[in-house]
């Protein structure tokens, strides 16, 4: 560690249970964040600020004006450029001493293993069901934990899938994707920006806890539910363990070839909703 690192990270290094070992673990860790949108932006900024050594950012989208309401690493001047590029340059301003890898390809069953293979932990910050299934299957194959966040309207959900020998994968809970016409993933639904902020922050926290060993090993599988208007807003549910008969994590020989291609393909028809018209109504 450089002398400047002690100054930069001193406030967390003096924490009980963190210390120099925690900081070294962060520095030696490599984390990939899939999706540099509402969830990815806040997760990325706290992972970078905390000193994660290598951060991968995977997103093939371009920044649009409608993103700026919540995707706080992007700026007006980055409209039109790749989100992964824009996010990386914001991280560079916060912490130039870490390595940031920019991946602007769309994640597919063909390239996902190669793109994600080198990282210790995968963050699911995506916005559609097919990519969520693909990430879960990849995490199973790579035997890596998947810190999964999701947000919609006033609500959010958080879970760590495929954690340890007993943690369920996404398919243990949801064996197959909903029919595309029922998924509601194509049509853009409303979202209160700060809800993605809260879930993205919690994803960063859980990731930091996993890396530094602060995540208690005897924690049972659980999911956090958040409702911005709820009372109480946070709620915790106890999840099933890994299922022996899970189509993905229940097989030793599991590979992506076994999955119907439709699981990974988003079928979207028609144009995006016209926000201007809707707003004016």
């Amino acid at each position, binding site marked *: 560690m450089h002398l400047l690192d002690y100054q930069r990270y001193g406030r967390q290094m003096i924490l009980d249970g963190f210390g120099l070992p925690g900081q070294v673990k962060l520095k030696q860790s490599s984390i990939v964040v899939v999706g540099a949108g509402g969830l990815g932006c806040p997760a990325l900024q706290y992972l970078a600020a905390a000193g994660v050594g290598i951060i991968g950012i995977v997103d093939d989208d371009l920044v649009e004006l409608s993103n700026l309401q919540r995707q706080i690493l992007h700026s007006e001047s980055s409209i039109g450029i790749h989100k992964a590029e824009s996010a990386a340059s914001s991280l560079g301003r916060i912490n130039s001493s870490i390595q940031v890898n920019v991946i602007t390809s769309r994640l597919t069953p063909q390239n996902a293993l190669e793109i994600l293979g080198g990282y210790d932990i995968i963050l699911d910050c995506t916005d559609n069901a097919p990519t969520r299934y693909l990430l879960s299957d990849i995490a199973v194959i790579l035997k890596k934990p998947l810190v999964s966040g999701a947000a919609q309207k006033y609500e959010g959900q958080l879970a760590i899938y495929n954690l340890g020998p007993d943690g369920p994968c996404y398919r243990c809970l*949801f*064996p197959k994707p909903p029919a595309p016409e*029922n998924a509601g993933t194509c049509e853009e639904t409303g*979202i209160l920006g700060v809800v993605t902020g809260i879930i993205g922050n919690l994803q960063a926290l859980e990731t930091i806890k996993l890396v530094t060993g602060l995540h208690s090993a005897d924690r049972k599988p659980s999911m956090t539910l958040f409702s911005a208007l709820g009372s109480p807003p946070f709620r915790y549910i106890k999840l099933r363990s890994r*299922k022996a008969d899970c189509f993905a994590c229940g097989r030793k020989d599991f590979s992506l070839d076994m999955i119907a291609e439709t699981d990974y393909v988003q079928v979207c028809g028609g144009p995006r909703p016209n926000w201007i018209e809707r707003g004016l109504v």
Partner: protein
Amino acid sequence: MSTDTVSLRIEFSGGLELLFANQRSHRISIPAIVPKDDGDVETKSADITYLIHYLRHNLLKERPELFIEDKTVRPGILVLVNDTDWELEGEGDYVLKDGDEIVFISTLHGG
């Protein structure tokens, strides 16, 4: 506490509330003993399978295909019995008790 009905708190979230008059929280009473199958003379204690059937016919306002598929909840819906994944409680066979809270959440995909 009555022996012939079971009082339940039902909650919908993750967008499912839209199918139920946009109301997240419901209190209902259902019979404690119900037919094994629709129109059957054999009976059973009311379980979650029956509750799903009951909700579909009594509380659901629109688009049943977004709630039910093959007599159970459609893929992507998680059922909770008192904040525990129903898979740990016997799934549809879980026999409902007075005061139980049953939550139906739709998994969110957005980010």
